[in-house]
């Protein structure tokens, strides 16, 4: 007899997520990913100075604000027909890169690790799901100590971001045409000082802790497989050039579909709404044409998240996708085991080290005294696209400017891909697919389920950010 388990809220993620799974014969046979909050930010941007978008869209998410500021500014650069000077490109990379490091450390230790280690017996570490904690007491204690140390480390990573961005969360320096902060020898030294400490932590403690979890929970190499398709827009440009896809980047633009690597083509992306709380006639649109008319009375719908698809296929985005398509050897040598809960954690840790190392070389490429920003003029009408990679995966921003004001704004964010509900062909989203077949030992303590969910590092504020609610149609989603 099947049993339904509702987990609402899923804690230790960003935002408001509920997950419902149906368990039959000790295994998950059905899963629903349900996004539970939106703020209607697109309407707020409409009619404003287009340059406001970078500052305002980063308020979509306080964990990964830089990603939005960068994508938004890339879209403005594109619309304005400008590009940053080398210093501007490098400092944008440093601001984004140091927040990658911050976000990955935060995710593994402070959001995910308590699924594998027992925290101290005080709130907020109690109450917790009981059961499958496998570390012996002394190792458990050691990981808790690393959890606490990681709090200091992620704070220092934010200091690195603030050195170039002014403050974090919500940096002030990324602007159309580049950045506002100028390089000098003191900032470079302060950045390198912190970077060295962070690299030591990542290589000597973060990666080994992930490996310790992998050795103790080896069954998670076979749990949480997902859709086995990857989408990477590409990020961290290494050279100047107006064409995002073709220019050299730390993370190249690639896709992996049905077992094949291929070039990225953003023209084949569209968003389905059959199972989302929106009118059916708004489905199947391209990112530039997105129209959103909510309808929470819609039968069968169960999420505010839409279902973006690449040529009709659900796509996983994030560190595993990036490491896999760029051929990072530790990850690709895992073979099928890469598509798993542990594959995602390991890829994230290795990527953290890779980004930190790259920043060490970018910061030394800065030319003191050279410009950081290309001046701009707001065109009367234009449109732009900004493709980027955030800690959680591929992020795209699309704008249209009319009469020097924002007319249309749209973004498709990483968690929209990963946590999407079913599409028009009833294909489940990547995380939903990853849950199917998972053994659940104790339905009262569904720890296996939350381990899979958290391996995707969901960010719900991002996933449901730009809805255009029709004030009349939003009604019940079974309230009270």
């Amino acid at each position, binding site marked *: 007899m099947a049993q339904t388990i509702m987990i609402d*809220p899923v*804690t230790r993620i960003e935002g408001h997520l509920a997950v419902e799974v149906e368990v039959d014969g000790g295994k998950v046979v059905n899963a629903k990913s349900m996004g539970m909050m939106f703020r209607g930010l697109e309407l*707020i941007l409409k009619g404003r100075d287009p340059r*406001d978008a970078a500052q305002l869209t980063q308020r979509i998410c306080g964990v990964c*604000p830089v990603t939005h500021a960068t994508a938004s500014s890339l879209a403005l650069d594109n619309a304005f027909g400008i590009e940053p000077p080398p210093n501007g490109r490098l400092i944008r990379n440093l601001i984004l890169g140091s927040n990658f490091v911050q976000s990955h450390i*935060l995710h593994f230790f402070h959001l995910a690790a308590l699924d594998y280690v027992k925290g101290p017996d005080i*709130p*907020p570490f109690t109450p917790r799901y009981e059961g499958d904690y496998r570390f012996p007491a002394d190792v458990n204690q050691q990981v808790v100590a690393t959890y606490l140390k990681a709090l200091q480390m992620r704070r220092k990573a934010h200091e690195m971001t603030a050195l170039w961005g002014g403050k974090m969360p919500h940096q002030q320096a990324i602007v159309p045409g580049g950045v506002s902060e100028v390089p000098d020898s003191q900032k470079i030294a302060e950045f390198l000082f912190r970077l060295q400490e962070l690299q030591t932590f990542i290589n000597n403690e973060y990666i080994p802790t992930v490996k310790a979890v992998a050795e103790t929970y080896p069954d998670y190499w076979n749990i949480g497989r997902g859709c086995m398709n990857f989408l990477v827009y590409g990020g961290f440009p290494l050279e100047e050039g107006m064409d995002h896809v073709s220019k050299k980047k730390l993370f190249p633009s690639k896709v992996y579909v049905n077992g094949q690597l291929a070039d990225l083509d953003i023209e084949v992306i569209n968003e389905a709404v059959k199972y989302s709380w929106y009118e059916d006639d708004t489905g199947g649109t391209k990112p530039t044409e997105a129209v959103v008319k909510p309808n929470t009375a819609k039968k069968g719908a169960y999420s505010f998240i839409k279902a973006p698809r690449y040529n009709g296929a659900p796509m996983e985005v994030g560190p595993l996708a990036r490491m896999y398509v760029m051929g990072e050897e530790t990850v690709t040598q895992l073979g099928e085991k890469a598509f798993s809960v542990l594959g995602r954690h390991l890829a994230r840790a290795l990527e953290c080290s890779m980004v930190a190392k790259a920043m060490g070389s970018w910061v030394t490429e800065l030319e003191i005294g050279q410009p950081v920003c290309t001046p701009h003029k707001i065109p009367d009408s234009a449109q732009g696209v900004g493709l980027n990679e955030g800690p959680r995966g591929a992020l795209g921003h699309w704008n249209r400017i009319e009469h020097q004001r924002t007319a249309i704004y749209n973004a498709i964010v990483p968690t929209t891909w990963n946590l999407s509900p079913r599409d028009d062909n009833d294909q489940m989203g990547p995380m939903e697919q990853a849950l199917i077949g998972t053994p659940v030992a104790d339905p009262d303590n569904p720890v296996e389920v939350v381990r899979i969910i958290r391996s995707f590092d969901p960010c719900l504020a991002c996933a449901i950010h730009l809805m255009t*609610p029709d004030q009349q149609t*939003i009604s019940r989603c079974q309230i009270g």
Partner: protein
Amino acid sequence: MPTKLSRRDFVRLCAGSAAAISLSGFLVPFIKEAAAAGGPPVIWIQGGSCTGCSISILNTVHPDIEKVITEVIGLHYHPNLSAGAGSLVIDEMYRVAAENSKKFYLVVEGAVPVADDGAYCIIGERNGHHLTFVQAVKELGSQAAGILNFGTCSAYGGFPATPPNPTECKPVKEIVKNVPIVNVPGCPPHPDWMVGTIAHVVLYNELPELDAFGRPTMFFDKIIHDNCQRRQYFDNAIFAKNFGEPGCMLELGCKGPFAHCDSTTRLWNGGTNWCVKAGGVCIGCTEPQFPAWPIYERLPEMPVAPGITATVDQIGGVLAAAAVVGIGGHLAGNIYTGRIGSKKNQDMKEGDE
């Protein structure tokens, strides 16, 4: 260790000219002692938010966040830190609130969407039904000894409440009445502002002194422009025309002349930097109307002294409210002597070229 720290000394420590980068670790033993003697439990909930305020408080230096959550307060629920999930944590949160009625403090992060019975934000499941954020704020808030609004969204509505306010977001004070409320605005607030406010309620079991907008005066009685390190540029009429240039940021849209906070001297992220030092503009994120104004356009008129209303097309009420609080008299003087001039709104966009 002395068991009593006078409020005057406490406020002096928080306002911290000596410990400019952070609250002094000197405070911790006092707070710990107060907490051990039965300091209030804390419940932290998030609504129409981005989690930025929670991430910001993790950046606290003295005391560090480990001390805050293990020694200073009993943090009984936090969406990003709580180990458990689902009804396990929601039920626990309500149990703690009921058992500590009028003793616990509720931290609210995020605006409260009220359109369509709160359907825009559901924070969990309780007794088999969706628990809306507005319902949780009402139910928990009315039982709390006080409500700490961390961030501009819960304090004033913030970004999601900006016109046309698609989800009808409200600040907490319009949802819960008759409970003491302190607003700690900022997008996000500096960790010291949040930890300092928590420390005050733990030590004295009452709210700190507040200004007209409910902000603790120990952090929000200063004007950015008055203490800005680019202030000499302003006095010498040197204005940056492009990003990355030296000069006062006024022409590029800086809201420093009417924004209240101490970022100029406190600095952010362990004393590394702050908004205007990094060549950015102050966006006025601690003010009640943030972000209703254009971020990179110079305001057509500057807010002046109380009673003098600036003529503004786009942002009318905004400046009037800011003017009530008042700004440095020198600025009003500068406007009248014509140093700043008064460009028309249409000219602003070209200012950045």
